[in-house]
Structures are given as structure tokens and as C-alpha cells.
């Protein structure tokens, strides 16, 4: 900063005045930058703030028209209702069973798709064979597949496999369409591990599996985290597959949330809606807060080529 001021001033005579005006300008510039950033931050936080405060307000207070303000009285009744009593059109069991469904389907799908992606990435980068690049290209398009183009055949296939409307069926679907992304993650990561390492291990007599287990996997910890977080977020937040391939009791949480919000009987319970939305959002928000760095890496992986 000081050197900038000096270099700016060096080609003119009134040294002190120029430096002072530069400093003043600089200070105004900084204020504008911080001001706009904080303004945008407020805008981005507003919906979360509104969701949380609404969810702990009493319904009368909400209808009296306190939208943005602090709750006069904090009550977690709405959370309790959303968790165990709210109706979604077919049943009034709250979000709890669907939250459990989402856990039961997300965890195996995350583990399987990440494992398969790791092996694929390993083969594509360290055991290249003629055509392996074409295979990678074919897999890659799966990252950008509009799922509407495969929903109908998938529904038919799940029916033939006897998995229609079931959680295992949904696990299968998420695993299959997760492979593209997880392979991309691991491929881009393994590319940066020197081939010499693998070659040396081969000379020492280590085989395909040995090298994967004792060299690649230990080095891959960060990308395993990235892949798990990405898959967890994607699968937990999925609505299209959940709505298309499950019904009633087997629905994931996003489908249940949408049904709860859209059921209207009597006075709309906005506090319950917001509590339900928060419950559905908490697992992914938690992951984001704990491992945000890895989440961002997953996000940008689709854009940064390996």
C-alpha cells in the first residue's frame, strides 16, 4: 500500500498532497467494498433468519404480522409438530419417518457411489488402456444428464427388478447416477499423483489391488471426503427421483416436506412449515458448517478440469 502511494507520487511534484488524497480515496473505497459485502451478506442471511425466527414464533404472533422481528416468546411447539405430528396428505406422523427414510437411503448410496468412483478413477488414471479416455467421456456426460430423459425407462426397470416404490430401488438409482460425478472427482484427483509412484510399486511386485489399497486410498482421503459430502448433499436434497420412484411411506424427506407445506387445512401453520423446512435442511447445513471447505471443492470440481 505504502509502496503504491510512493510510486504514484514519484512522477509528480507535490508529493504529500497526492499521497494524502490517495489515502483518502483508498479509505472511501474500502468503506464501499465492506458496505456492499455486508449488505449482500444480510440479504443472503435473511431467509435463514426468517425461517428460524418464524419456526419458534407463536402462530398468533405470525398472523399479527411480525415477519422479520424477533419472537416475543420462543416456543419449540412448531418443531415438535413438524417432527412428529404434521400431516402430509396421507398420514400425520410428522417428518420423522421420512427423515429416517432419507438417512437409510442416503448412507448406502453415498458409500457405494464413492467406492465405485474411487476404483474407476484409479483405473482411468493409472491403468490407462486404449479407449479408457472414451469411457471417461461417456461417463462424464452422466454428470449433466437431465434426469427427465431417463425417468420413464428407470421406472419400468425398477418394476421389472421388483424394486418399484422401495427404498433399495431409490438407493440403486442414486448410486447409478452418482457414479459419473464420483468418477470425475477421483479421476481429477488421482491424475495429480505421480505415475512414478505406481510404476515403482509395480516393479516391487505390487499388483493392481495392492497399489490401490496401500498407495492410492491413503493418499485419497481429502477427495473421499469431497465425494462423500457432495453425494450426501445431492442425494439428501433430491426431489425428482424421490417423487418419481417412491410413494407414501417410503418417500424421502424432501417429498414429505413439500407435501406437508402444500397440505392446507384451516389456518396455515407457517411456523410448522418453517420448522419442517429447517429439519429437512439441518443435515446438509451441518455438513456444510463442519466441512465447508470440502463442499466448495466438490462444487468447483465440475468446473475445473483435471
Amino acid at each position, binding site marked *: 500500500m505504502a509502496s503504491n502511494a510512493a510510486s504514484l507520487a514519484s512522477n509528480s511534484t507535490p508529493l504529500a498532497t497526492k499521497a494524502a488524497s490517495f489515502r483518502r480515496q483508498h479509505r472511501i473505497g474500502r468503506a464501499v467494498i465492506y458496505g456492499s459485502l455486508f449488505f449482500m451478506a444480510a440479504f*443472503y442471511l435473511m*431467509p435463514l433468519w426468517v425461517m428460524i425466527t418464524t419456526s419458534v414464533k407463536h402462530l398468533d404472533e*405470525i398472523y399479527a404480522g411480525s415477519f422479520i422481528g424477533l419472537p416475543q416468546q420462543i416456543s419449540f411447539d412448531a418443531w415438535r409438530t413438524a417432527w412428529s405430528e404434521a400431516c402430509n396428505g396421507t398420514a400425520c406422523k410428522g417428518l420423522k419417518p421420512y427423515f429416517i427414510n432419507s438417512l437409510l437411503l442416503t448412507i448406502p448410496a453415498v458409500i457405494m457411489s464413492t467406492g465405485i468412483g474411487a476404483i474407476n478413477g484409479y483405473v482411468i488414471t493409472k491403468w490407462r488402456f486404449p479407449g479408457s479416455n472414451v469411457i471417461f467421456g461417456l461417463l462424464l456426460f452422466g454428470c449433466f444428464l437431465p434426469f*427427465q*430423459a431417463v425417468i420413464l425407462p428407470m421406472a419400468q426397470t425398477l418394476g421389472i427388478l421388483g424394486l418399484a416404490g422401495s427404498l433399495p430401488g431409490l438407493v440403486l438409482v442414486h448410486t447409478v447416477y452418482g457414479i459419473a460425478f464420483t468418477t470425475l472427482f477421483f479421476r481429477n484427483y488421482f491424475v495429480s499423483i505421480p505415475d512414478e509412484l505406481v510404476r515403482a510399486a509395480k516393479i516391487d511386485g505390487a499388483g493392481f489391488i495392492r497399489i490401490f489399497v496401500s498407495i492410492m486410498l491413503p493418499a485419497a482421503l481429502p477427495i473421499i471426503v469431497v465425494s462423500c459430502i457432495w453425494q450426501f448433499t445431492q442425494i439428501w436434497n433430491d426431489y425428482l427421483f424421490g417423487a418419481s420412484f417412491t410413494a407414501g411411506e417410503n418417500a424421502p424427506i424432501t417429498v414429505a*416436506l413439500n407435501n406437508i407445506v402444500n397440505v392446507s387445512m384451516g389456518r396455515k401453520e407457517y411456523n410448522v412449515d418453517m420448522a419442517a423446512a429447517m429439519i429437512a*435442511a439441518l443435515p446438509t447445513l451441518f455438513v*456444510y458448517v463442519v466441512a465447508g471447505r470440502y463442499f466448495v471443492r466438490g*462444487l468447483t470440481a465440475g468446473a475445473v478440469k483435471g
Partner: protein
Amino acid sequence: MSRSTPLSNRIENWLPRLVLAPSLLVVLVAVYLFICWTGWISLSSSMIVPKYDFVGLNQYVRLWSTPRWHTAVFNLFVFSTLFLALTTGLGLLMAILLDQKIRVEGTLRAIFLYPMALSFIVTGTAWKWILNPALGVQKVVNDLGWTSFVFDWIAQPTFAIYCVVIAAVWQSTGFAMAIFLAGLRGIDNSVIKAAQIEGASLPLIYRTIVVPMLRPAFLSVIVLLSYIAIKSFDLILALTNTGPGSATEMPSTFMYSATFRRDQMGVGAASAMMMLMTVAAIIVPYLYSELKESRDGQ
């Protein structure tokens, strides 16, 4: 070496391919075969259940003569244009501001990005509440004293699509910001320093030097956001449920309701194929150039 263990060597040689084969098979079936399958249904007279006859392009003709589909295509156009422009612009602005050695950069970045961790259903639910004219933003401004203030876009057929834009921009700007920020961090600082010494102002430096250098980031952001725009489905269901009337119908919601609610499977499949072709037209050249570049780079 090859003499002593020819068999195990051969297995070792084939093992990588064997390991990759199931994934390849699954993707060939679940992506490419299924696409063909959908294409086939779109050429058949399927209504409630798939029927494998052949009626040529009849379903496409029906699709393009459905007013609802016209609404959907028009909405997609309006939505994508605004969504892309606003998200890219805001994301770039955020990234540039954050790149000025900001003290609380980490926190601000986390705030701009957290919506990306949420489900579109959650986002839609939250914004439906915020944009609700009776109790939301309109009411707050009215209570502050500006009683004639009206902000009921979500109930207006012509304006409801802009509500979807607002919520989608809120959700996705952080994503654009993250990519631009990564791009900015990759730019050599000495270029900027040199321009500063020459006396160029910061905005000028950004406009003429830095932003042009972000071309690859722009490409990524625009391609990935277009993909998000075309497939956006849950946000619309949660926020407007394609209403008022069918004012916020989009190709994705059209496909879903034609197939699962209106028993027009053939038309649904035809609309899915239209979506696929649109995405492919954007994504395939992008992937091709990315792969080619990375191979040239090696």
C-alpha cells in the same frame, strides 16, 4: 518375468478393464440405453403405460401444439436469461469484492455459499413465505409506513416467474462466486501491480485486464448454470407449484405432469427428449473442449 507367471500376468493385465466394466455397463444401460428407450416411447402412442408401436413424430407435433408447452419454453427462456445474467453478474461482483484482501473473507464466503447446501424444496418453502404478500415483505414495508407498496409478484401470472428467478439467484450466486474466486486467485498478481504502477484505476484494471482473463471461469459458470436452469424442477414445485394457473410451468414440470398426472406418456417422453437435446447442445461441446484442452496440456 512374463515367462514365469503368464497366467497371473494376463489376469493382472485384464483386471483394470474387468473392474471398470460393470460401471461402464451400468452407465451404458442407465444413461445411453435409457435415453434411446425414452426416445422410442416418444415415437410411440403411449398414454398411461408404455406402448411400443410407432407413430412417427406425432407426439412431438402434439407437444408443440400444446399451449402449456409454449408457456414452459417461454418461461425457460425468460428464467434462464435473467438467472444467468444476475447470477453471473452478482457472483463476479462478490468474487471481485472478496478478492480485495477482506478481513472476514472466510465468513462472508460461507454466508454467500450456504444456500447451495440446501434443497430447492427448502429454498422454495422459505421464499414462498417471504414473498407471500399478506404476511411477508410487502407487509413489512407497509407496516413501516409505505402503505401503498405492493409486492405480490407471486400471485401475479405475469410476474410469478420473476419470483422463481429471485429464489434461484439467491441459491446459486455463491456457486458462481466460488468459481470466479478460484479463477481470480489463479491470476498472476504482478500483472495487476504493474498496471497499478502505470496509474490505472482499480475498476479499469478489472474491466480491461482481469475480467478478460477469467474467460474459462465464465465458460464454466455459464454452462453449469444453464444446466441448473434447464433441469430446475423442485424449486418451481415448492415455490409456485407451476402457478398461478400454469404461469410458471417449465419444461421439467411439464414433463413430470404430462407423464405422471395427465397420462400423456408419449408427450412427456417427447418433452424429455427436447430437454435432453437442449442440454446436450450446451454440454457436449463444453465437455469436448475441456477434455481436449486437458489432453493438450499433458
